[in-house]
């Protein structure tokens, strides 16, 4: 199992996932299919069923944005796309950014915890031959540690980038519509769900980001995460509950103590 507590997929979920095949079958209905798929993915994200969400995502053909744009152009010429179609496309990209960040974190977590090479051991009563063999094993182990650390750095970079893609999602933020829909769709539930997803996912992304940075000893960047969350430009702090902010500050305090241990000031200077 992975760290980011994955919930199990039920029979009903499997049916929902299978139904996506039918939705995307007819390219002329792709806009509608994308909206329906988004709705299903929202429910999966809200219940922490990331694998199920990824399965739905993978069933949406990757050329869908193109298909939707072309369908619209053949129907309406050069008129601007409907707000609800634009919003659905943006939401789909938001989901992709989140799933990518999640997968990157799981890869990193797997590598960090399970792929670490284990140190060879030797009994005090070992024979000469065993000692020679052991020395050889230790050298090999050291090389493996180097390799492991190198790829840990690379994976950390990827996951940090992916998480920032969510946190700093351009033009208003992750899961925030850019265009106002005429509210004749009876779909105000969608906006509410997206807001709840922000409240659920953004604090958890921040805490995953902190754990990657902290575990790879990038303590200064741990503290500077405060700048990102407190910024007026992105206003991420608004989706945090008090208790979540308290937990975050506790985590930053841990990083700060590490900096003090390294003879730096609490912010890493």
């Amino acid at each position, binding site marked *: 199992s992975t760290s980011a507590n994955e919930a199990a997929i039920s029979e009903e979920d499997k049916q929902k996932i299978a139904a996506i095949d039918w939705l995307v079958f007819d390219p002329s209905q792709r806009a509608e299919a994308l909206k329906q798929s988004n709705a299903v993915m929202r429910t999966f994200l809200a219940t922490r069923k990331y694998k199920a969400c990824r399965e739905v995502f993978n069933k949406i053909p990757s050329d869908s944005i193109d298909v939707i744009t072309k369908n619209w152009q053949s129907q309406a010429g050069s008129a601007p796309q409907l707000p609800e179609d634009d919003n659905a496309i943006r939401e789909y990209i938001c989901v992709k950014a989140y799933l990518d960040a999640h997968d990157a974190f799981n890869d990193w977590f797997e590598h960090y915890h399970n792929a670490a090479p284990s140190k060879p051991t030797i009994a005090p009563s070992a024979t000469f031959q065993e000692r020679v063999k052991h020395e050889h094993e230790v050298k090999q182990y050291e090389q493996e540690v180097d390799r492991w650390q190198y790829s840990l750095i690379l994976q950390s970079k990827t996951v940090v980038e992916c998480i920032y893609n969510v946190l700093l999602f351009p033009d208003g933020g992750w899961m925030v519509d850019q265009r106002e829909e005429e509210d004749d769709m009876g779909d105000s539930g969608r906006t509410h769900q997206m807001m709840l997803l922000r409240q659920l996912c953004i604090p958890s992304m921040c805490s995953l980001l902190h754990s990657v940075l902290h575990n790879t000893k990038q303590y200064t960047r741990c503290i500077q995460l405060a700048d990102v969350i407190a910024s007026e430009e992105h206003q991420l702090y608004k989706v945090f509950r008090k208790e979540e902010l308290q937990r975050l500050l506790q985590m930053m305090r841990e990083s700060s103590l590490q900096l003090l241990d390294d003879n730096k000031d609490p912010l890493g*200077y």
Partner: protein
Amino acid sequence: LGQFLDSHDHLSWLHDIQMNSYSKAHDTLKRLAFKETEQFSRKKTLISLSKLSALASDEVQEDEIQDLIDEQILLAHQEALPVNVLHSLQIDQDTMPPFSAMNLIQLYCSEHNSSSNEYDFKKSLDLLSYVSKEDAEYEELKLHIWCQSIKKDNWTQIQGPEPLASCEHTIFFRTLGLAYDQGLDLHEYLPDIDTLLSSDELGDLRDSSHFQYLIRAGYEQIERVVT
């Protein structure tokens, strides 16, 4: 331990957070931030941490958070300084100190900001709200901003049958337009016309009756729109 740490602000907030005293941590971090004169990025992070502590606490008042937001906006103005201004003054973005609003106005309006436009001058006017009106430099800075905006254009070349229409393209009038559109109180932010036209900063322009005529006509127009 708490008592010992009280005299060590730079560490005590860590203790406060551990003790769940978020409003105390907010206070200390804020004090540290306002004392910080060496490192821009350190000041920024202290403000951020202070704000998060305030939001994590049950006691901190709205206006205390607003103080921090105002400070963040000031810091954001510094972060947005054009690269060429920093370059020409050999300021390293990674190690620069926090600048005062007054310094920032000077930088935004300076000749080093060769590509400055109405947005830079409007920013300078916004920054003026960080300077106390009782400050001796307040009126001087206000005058400085407008004089510098005037000096961006070559006024003696504005001729033709409708010189007033041509004026609309000058940085001075574009700044005025932008300030008006964004709801700035022009009575407050525009200097008295005679003070402006007799300012030393304008140099030879002061003696040009053509220039004087254009600015006076422009002022009259604004007067009509504003009142």
